[in-house]
């Protein structure tokens, strides 16, 4: 009897295991579903409220919201919800003609008054808005929107293409919780349900710009890059964004996958806090010089990143090759600088000391982008060779913004888009313009250089393209000379899609993932 009991038990376990295995393999999709699209993304937003944090990016990426202008694949500003625009002779008034026939996803037509209400809402609710431009007045008349600015704003259409200024139906708000249910926008899809881990979109029946091919779009957030790659391999999702460097090789089969790889406008940099040990320019220069960035990008990241040097990536035309990095890789110089700054290894543990204090630096990183911890560990290893003790602190992405603003770091890694307005002015301002009592909150490092501030002031009122270009080049050189940050590399970015769908395209701006151009492939 006892033996039979045991046998039954074993059989049961085997059966259970079989059920599990069958369950797992059953989830692989056999046929292309033409009604539902599944997109694997990494989502940082807790809510869909476009004015909170950077959540507007998600609202735009998921195809809910659109703005007055958009960036094309070369980062030129193109009309979107605005048909055309012009600037007055005194450079203080911009006039936008709002496209006729556009409707919000609740059927309400889009007019200038709705755009005005939406823009004012962004300004009222998000402090970042005024870092783009300040307005005296916004006037709405029929389909004509007029913006009177406080000072000349050369790049206004580019500013308004930023997701922060995407247009929502403000009048729908009392009845609808934008944060939880998603805003009412003009995009091809609208939100059905949203939690951080998964969003479900449905077709916007009133979409103005052609056919919307899918009834439903499921957007699971798969934060781990390798899991995302596996989900795409197994057919769990039809397309995925930002497949990690190490995994791109898995999608070489052209019959199964389409890989859209482009040089992005992003830069991976480590902000350097100027208040701690890295406040000493020599120590800072020594740190940067110790990092062999060529190897990080070409070997470890297999060439999916370009070697870092300056704030603005070489994909934009700001004379990247002419910029001189005073702190290029030179381990001897690094050691010498540290010795000049008075750091010595007195106890023989390989870490330098000065006045009884160890040369320790906290390096804050987050893991939702696969390359960041890799860079951090490579830097840690290189810096140790000259006597730095780098302590890596992994934190959740949501803490990064706050830590950056409060300056709670020695080094803080970020993967930042440098030209979210089609021009790197804002990016340079955010991180390196002097922060006086919190008027430039993104610069939490304490970095300040009056010469740079002067250039920034000049840049903000310069319209001439050539002059702007030269000013931006000058600004970059000052930042590099000061060793204000460690520029690690410039990523490529990608969308990889199954060949069962077509039209998935990555844009350099990284704002447009889900569009109505993505549709089932013709067989």
């Amino acid at each position, binding site marked *: 009897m006892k033996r039979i009991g045991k046998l039954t038990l074993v059989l049961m376990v085997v059966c259970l295991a079989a059920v599990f295995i069958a369950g797992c393999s059953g989830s692989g999709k056999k046929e292309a579903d033409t009604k539902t699209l599944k997109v694997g993304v990494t989502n940082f937003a807790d809510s869909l409220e476009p004015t909170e944090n950077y959540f507007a990016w998600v609202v735009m990426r998921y195809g809910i919201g659109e703005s007055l202008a958009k960036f094309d694949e070369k980062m030129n500003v193109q009309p979107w919800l605005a048909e055309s625009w012009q600037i007055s002779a005194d450079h203080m008034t911009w006039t936008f003609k709002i496209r006729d026939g556009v409707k919000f996803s609740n059927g309400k037509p889009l007019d200038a008054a709705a755009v005005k209400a939406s823009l004012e809402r962004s300004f009222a609710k998000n402090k970042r808005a005024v870092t783009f431009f300040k307005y005296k007045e916004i006037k709405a008349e029929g389909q004509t929107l007029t913006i009177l600015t406080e000072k000349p704003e050369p790049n206004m259409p580019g500013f308004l293409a930023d997701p922060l200024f995407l247009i929502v139906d403000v009048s729908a708000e009392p009845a609808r919780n934008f944060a939880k249910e998603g805003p009412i926008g003009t995009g091809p899809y609208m939100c059905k349900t949203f939690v951080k881990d998964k969003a479900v979109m449905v077709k916007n029946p009133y979409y103005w710009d052609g056919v919307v091919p899918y009834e439903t779009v499921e957007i699971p957030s798969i934060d781990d*890059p*390798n899991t995302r*790659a*596996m989900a795409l391999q197994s057919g769990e999702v039809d397309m995925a964004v930002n497949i*990690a460097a*190490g*995994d791109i*090789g*898995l999608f070489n089969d052209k019959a199964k996958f389409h890989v859209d790889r482009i040089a992005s406008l992003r830069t991976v940099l480590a902000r350097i806090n100027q208040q701690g040990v890295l406040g000493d320019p020599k120590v800072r220069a020594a740190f940067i010089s110790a990092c*062999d960035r060529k*190897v*990080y990008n070409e*070997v*470890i990241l297999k060439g999916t990143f370009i070697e870092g040097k300056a704030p603005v990536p070489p994909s934009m035309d700001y004379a990247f090759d002419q910029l001189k990095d005073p702190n290029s890789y030179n381990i001897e110089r690094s050691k010498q600088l540290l010795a000049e700054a008075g750091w010595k290894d007195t106890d023989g543990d390989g870490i330098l000391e000065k006045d009884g204090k160890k040369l320790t630096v906290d390096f804050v990183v987050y893991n939702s982008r*696969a390359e960041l*911890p*890799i860079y*951090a*560990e*490579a830097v*840690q*290893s*290189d810096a*140790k060779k000259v006597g730095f003790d780098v*302590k*890596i602190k*992994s934190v959740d992405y949501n803490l990064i913004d706050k830590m950056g603003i409060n300056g709670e770091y020695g080094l803080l890694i970020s993967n930042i888009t440098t030209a979210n307005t089609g021009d790197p002015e804002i990016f340079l301002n955010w991180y390196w313009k002097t922060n006086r009592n919190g008027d430039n909150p993104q610069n939490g490092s304490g970095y300040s250089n009056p010469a740079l501030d002067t250039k920034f002031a000049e840049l903000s009122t310069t319209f001439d393209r050539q002059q702007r270009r030269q000013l931006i080049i000058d600004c970059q050189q000052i930042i590099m000379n000061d060793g204000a940050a460690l520029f690690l590399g410039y990523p490529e970015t990608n969308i990889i899609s199954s060949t069962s769908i077509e039209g998935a395209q990555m844009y350099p701006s990284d704002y447009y993932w889900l569009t109505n151009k993505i549709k089932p492939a013709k067989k």
Partner: protein
Amino acid sequence: MGSLTKDKFLFWLYTFFVLLILGFAIFAPWLAPYDPYDAVMRQSLQAPSDDHLFGTDKLGRDCLSRIIYGARTSLMMTLSLVAVITVVGTFIGVLAGYMGGKVDTVLMRIVDMMLAFPGIVLAIAIAGMLGGNIVNAILALAAVSWTKYARLGRSLTLKLRQRDFIAAAVTNGSRPLHILWRHILPNILPTIVVTAAMDIGTMIMELAGLSFLGFGAQPPTPEWGLMLNEGRQHIQTAPWLMLYPGAAILIVVTIFNLWGDSLRDIMDPQRAN
């Protein structure tokens, strides 16, 4: 030699393996072919070859060397953890058992409270709050694991307290501390030691688990759980990064478990029959 029973033979066999592992840990600097921290980044992610028997990781560090040094980290963490929970847990248990009354009630209710939480989840919470590093991981696991020894120590003490020789010692005027040290501890020690030995394997796993989740050892420390996590990113393109640390954990945990079992068998002849 003729009297060597099967149990004893197995015990010595496993002891030999355990010593072998300890040897690897102690003599790591002589056994490892490379410095485990030496990142030769130009040789990142090389497949196993004659130069690098277990391949190299993403920063070009030699995996074999890291696994050998990993034995050091893992065993040091585990042994100190087991030592801490054995000493603390037994002390509290014996105290509760011998003193009885209010002391017993208070201490055992604390134990009950700790047992109400699922162990590893609580450990993750504690390690998460303290911040990830080796010491905090040990503290976190110690905080949830000592209760077992407290319970064991208490029940063994309760059993002994009824015995005549304790009563005799009390009548002779021995102080409680003396009785605990000279009469009770030696009698409960074998059971405690066997339990501790059998716990080593589990603790290696749990520590590696915490490191895998990022709550234990931090990069660039060579630690098996952490190495598994680092290798996870390359599971499809560089499987050796997960294979060898995984195998190391498997082998070491198995050996310690078998050793603990065989130790129990020879220490407790009644059970062996």
